[in-house]
């Protein structure tokens, strides 16, 4: 049977990917962020999963505003890297895990989550930056297959934080019931203080960010109880991306340990964070 082995929460700010692609990770601006990643990367490199289930949102690259699925799962064998308006990132295409995707779609539908499916999907920085955070130098291929899980965090109304947490719990059950012996890591991406437009642009609420970073481990229900308005007020309009961390947290059990975390301001216009949790085997 499949098992969930670890969970990673990470920001997916595009400029973090650009810093890696343009070899600027040692620049004074970026060095503290990447130094913060180092212990997590070392640990993850020694604990390679077979498949990464990556919860993320598209940013106007594969999902048009004419049709906005609340929750969707990629079911393809391969996903191309999206051209987001400035050319494709120079990273490998993403190999899918279609059998696990099919299993997750079926199990989640049986648990009464209405999942849209993508048979063709160009994956944007929301997915590829977390892969680069995990594995900065993939060479010709990423070290694991990927199941993309998309959440609408762009068009109001987004799913509630509570619904995302419940989806994560169902996702964890679905992964553990997959009959193949695969080791699965779950990534919850995006988030931390994020206000891109308007007079509040550049808003950073470190107090809220640090509270969230602490509570995601042992008090996720407290975070799941927050409303959309709470997230937008405290973390910024795009800070609502944090609800995707709750899908990851829900997929893990109650028995986890924190391997590493880091928090940094700024990454372009936002805060950025990483938190890595290991599933403790009974």
């Amino acid at each position, binding site marked *: 049977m499949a098992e969930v082995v670890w969970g990673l929460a990470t920001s997916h700010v595009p400029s973090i990917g650009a810093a890696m692609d343009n070899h600027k990770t040692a620049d004074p601006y970026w060095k503290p962020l990447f130094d913060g990643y180092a212990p997590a990367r070392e640990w993850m490199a020694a604990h390679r999963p077979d498949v990464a289930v990556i919860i993320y949102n598209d940013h106007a690259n594969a999902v048009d505003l004419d049709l906005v699925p609340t929750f969707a799962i990629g079911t393809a064998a391969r996903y191309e890297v999206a051209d987001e*308006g400035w050319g494709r990132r120079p990273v490998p295409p993403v190999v899918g895990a279609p059998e696990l995707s099919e299993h997750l779609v079926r199990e989640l539908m049986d648990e009464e989550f209405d999942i849209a499916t993508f048979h063709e999907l160009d994956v944007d920085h929301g997915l590829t930056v977390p892969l680069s955070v995990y594995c900065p130098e993939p060479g010709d291929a990423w070290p694991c297959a990927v199941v993309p899980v998309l959440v609408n965090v762009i068009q*109001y109304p987004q799913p509630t934080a509570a619904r995302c947490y419940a989806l994560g719990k169902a996702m964890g059950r679905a992964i553990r019931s997959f009959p193949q012996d695969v080791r699965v890591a779950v990534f919850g991406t995006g988030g931390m203080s994020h206000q891109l437009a*308007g007079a*509040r642009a550049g*808003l950073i609420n470190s107090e809220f960010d640090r509270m969230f970073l602490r509570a995601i481990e042992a008090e996720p229900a407290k975070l799941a109880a927050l409303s959309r308005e709470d997230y937008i*007020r405290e973390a910024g309009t795009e800070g609502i991306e944090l609800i995707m961390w709750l899908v990851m947290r829900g997929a893990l059990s109650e028995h986890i340990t924190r391997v590493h975390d880091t928090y940094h301001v700024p990454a372009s216009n936002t805060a950025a964070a990483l938190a890595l949790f290991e599933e403790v085997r009974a």
Partner: protein
Amino acid sequence: MTTAQDNYVLDLANNRRGRALNRMCGSLRHAVNREEFSADEAVYCDAYGLSPEQKRAVLERDWTAMLDLGASIFYTYKLAMLDKLSMQYLGGVFTGMSVEEFAAAMRSGGRKLG
């Protein structure tokens, strides 16, 4: 939906209002469209059915007006990138700062609530 008056929340009404503008900016993810847009911006805007106000905002790069007319920042960012302008530049525009001032505010811990 929030007491903050300076949020641009992309709800369904804004989505309707901004549809042509967002579709036009979204099309810039294809290189061939970027070339076509740059060749004649006004003609390109007309082909996507932008309103006169939206067209003016695009041609004059009035980023705040675009938001007022229903734009999503994730779409207009593609137009900014075509102009080789960063999100930090846009942050400066929205807050009345130069890109250098905005970047300095972020480096010093970001802008605070209130």
